[in-house]
C-alpha cells in the first residue's frame, strides 16, 4: 500500500477545500439556514406535527441529507474531473498507485469534507430548532455511510464526465429531484397510496427515512432495509469504479 500517495492525494483535496472555503463550507450552511428559516420557522409554525415531531425538527434529517448528497457528489466529481480537464491527470496515471489508493485519497477526502459539513449543519440547526438524536451511533453511521457512498458516486461521475455540463447534469437532473421527492419535507405516508408505491423506487427515500429514524425513532420504511439499500448502492459504485480502472475507461486511450 502506497500510504504516502493516499496521504498526498487526501491532503491535496483537503487543501482545495480550504482555498475555496466560502464555496465548500459557507454556501451550504447558508442555504440550509435559509431552509430552516423558510420551512422551519415561517411555514413550519403553521404546520401540524408529523409522527409526533414538530415540522421544523422533522425536516432536519432530510435537509442534512440534501446537503450531504449534493456536496459529496459535487466535491468528489470535481476533484477527479479537474485533473482530467487541466491535464494534470498524467501524473496520477504515471504514479505507482493502485485504483484503491486513488479512490481512498479522493473519495476519503470528499467524504471527510461532507461529514464535517454535516456536523456543521447540525450545529447550525441547533440555533433554529430544538432536536434530539435518539440513536447517535446510528446517526453517525448513516452520516459516514452516506458520505462515503455518494462521494464514490460523485467520483464515478467525475471520471465519466468529459465536459462541465456532464459534470452538472446528474446532480441537477437526477439527484435534486430524487432528494426533493425523497421525503425530506414530508412523510411518505402523507402521499396517496399510488405515489407511496412509486416513491419506494426512489433510493433517497431509504436514506432519509433511516436517517430520520436515528434522530427520532420513527421511520417510513424499516431501518434495516434503509441500511441494506445504502450498502447495495455502495457495492454497485465500488464495482463501477473497479471496472473503470480495469478498462481505463475515459482515463487512458
Amino acid at each position, binding site marked *: 500500500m502506497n500510504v*504516502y500517495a493516499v496521504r498526498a492525494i487526501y*491532503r*491535496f483535496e483537503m*487543501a482545495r477545500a480550504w482555498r475555496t472555503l466560502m464555496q465548500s463550507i459557507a454556501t451550504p450552511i447558508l442555504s440550509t439556514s435559509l431552509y430552516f428559516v423558510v420551512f422551519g420557522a415561517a411555514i413550519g409554525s403553521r404546520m401540524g406535527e408529523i409522527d409526533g415531531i414538530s415540522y421544523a425538527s422533522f425536516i432536519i434529517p432530510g435537509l442534512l441529507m440534501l446537503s450531504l448528497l449534493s456536496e459529496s457528489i459535487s466535491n468528489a466529481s470535481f476533484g477527479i474531473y479537474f485533473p482530467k480537464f*487541466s491535464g494534470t491527470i*498524467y501524473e496520477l496515471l504515471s*504514479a505507482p498507485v493502485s485504483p484503491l489508493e486513488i479512490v481512498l485519497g479522493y473519495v476519503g477526502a470528499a467524504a471527510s469534507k461532507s461529514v464535517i459539513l454535516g456536523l456543521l449543519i447540525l450545529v447550525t440547526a441547533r440555533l433554529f430548532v430544538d432536536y434530539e438524536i435518539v440513536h447517535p451511533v446510528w446517526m453517525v453511521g448513516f452520516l459516514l455511510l452516506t458520505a462515503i457512498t455518494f462521494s464514490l458516486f460523485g467520483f464515478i461521475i467525475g471520471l465519466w464526465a468529459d465536459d462541465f455540463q456532464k459534470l452538472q447534469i446528474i446532480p441537477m437532473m437526477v439527484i435534486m429531484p430524487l432528494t426533493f421527492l425523497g421525503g425530506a419535507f414530508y412523510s411518505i405516508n402523507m402521499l396517496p397510496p399510488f405515489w407511496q408505491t412509486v416513491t419506494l423506487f426512489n433510493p433517497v427515500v431509504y436514506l432519509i427515512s433511516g436517517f430520520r429514524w436515528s434522530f427520532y425513532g420513527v421511520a417510513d420504511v424499516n431501518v434495516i432495509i434503509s441500511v441494506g439499500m445504502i450498502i447495495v448502492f455502495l457495492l454497485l459504485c465500488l464495482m463501477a469504479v473497479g471496472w473503470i480502472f480495469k478498462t*481505463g475507461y475515459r482515463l487512458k486511450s
Partner: protein
Amino acid sequence: MEPIISIRNLTKTYDSGLQALDNINLDIRRGEIFGLLGPNGAGKTTLISIICGIVRPGEGSVSVDGHDIVSDFRAARSKIGLVPQELSAATFESVWATVNFSRGLFGKPPDPGFLEKILRDLSLWGKRNERIMALSGGMKRRVLIAKALAHEPEILFLDEPTAGVDVELRHDMWEMVHGLRESGVTIILTTHYINEAEEMADRIGIINEGKIGVVEDKTVLMNKLGKKQLTLSLQHPLSKIPMELDDHPLELSADGNALVYTFDTQKKHTGIPELLRHLSQYGIDFKDIHSSQSSLEDIFVSLVREKA
C-alpha cells in the same frame, strides 16, 4: 549489462483505428542519454506514455529494470520521472505544495531538504510560495521538471524538452541533464530536431510512422547524416567504372548514365577537385552535376530497406 528499459514487439493502435506504434523493439542502456528522434506524429509521445502508464499498451511488452510495466507497475513506475510535452500543472496550488504532492504520490516519505535543493537548482526556490498559474511558461516548465525529479527517479523522460523554451532554461536544462547523468540517472528525451539530439544524446533512435528505423551511437549516426552525394550525369553511358578511378568512392547508377560520389562534409578534403581532374584526364564528359545531403528521412528509409 542488463538494459534498464526493454521494449519488445510493442504495438499500439488507438481506438480511432490509427496505428501509432508498429512492432517496436528497443533497449535503453543504464545511465545513458538516449535521444528519440522523429518528426511530429511519429509516435514518440505514445511510446513514452505507454512506458509511463498513461496510455494502454497494445501487444508486446515493456520492462523497466526487470519489472513488467503492467503486472509489476508499482516497481516499474516508482523508478520513472516524466516531464510531459504539454504544459499542464495544477494551477491553483503553490510550487512548494505541488512538488511535495509529487513526491508523496510516488511513495516517498517527505524530505523538505531534498525538495529545496531541487527548487534551488531550477531557480524556483524564490517562487516556492507562488501559485503555479501566476508563473510564466518557462517557469511552469521548470515546475514540471521539479515535479518529475521530486521522487528521485532513476529514469527521466523529457518529452520535447526544448519546445517553446528560452535560451536560459535550455542551458539550465542541459546542465541539469548532464548532472543527473553523472549521478547515474538514465535520460530519454524526444525531439524532432537533429541538432538537438546531436547536442544532447549518447545514442539516438530514429522513429518514423511508429517504427524504429535505426538505433546508433550518436557519432556513427552523425557520420551517416554528414554524408553528401555528388551526382554526375554522364554525356555517354558507361558499362562499368574505369579502373583508373578505383581510388575514388564512386558508384555507377543502374542505367550507367550517372556516377555517384559520396563524401564527408565534415572532412577538410572532399576529394572533389581530384575527382574532376581525373574525369577529364580519362575523357569522361558529364553534362550536369548536383549534390545532395542524405536527410533523416533518407537514412530512415535506407535502413528500413536494409532490414527488410
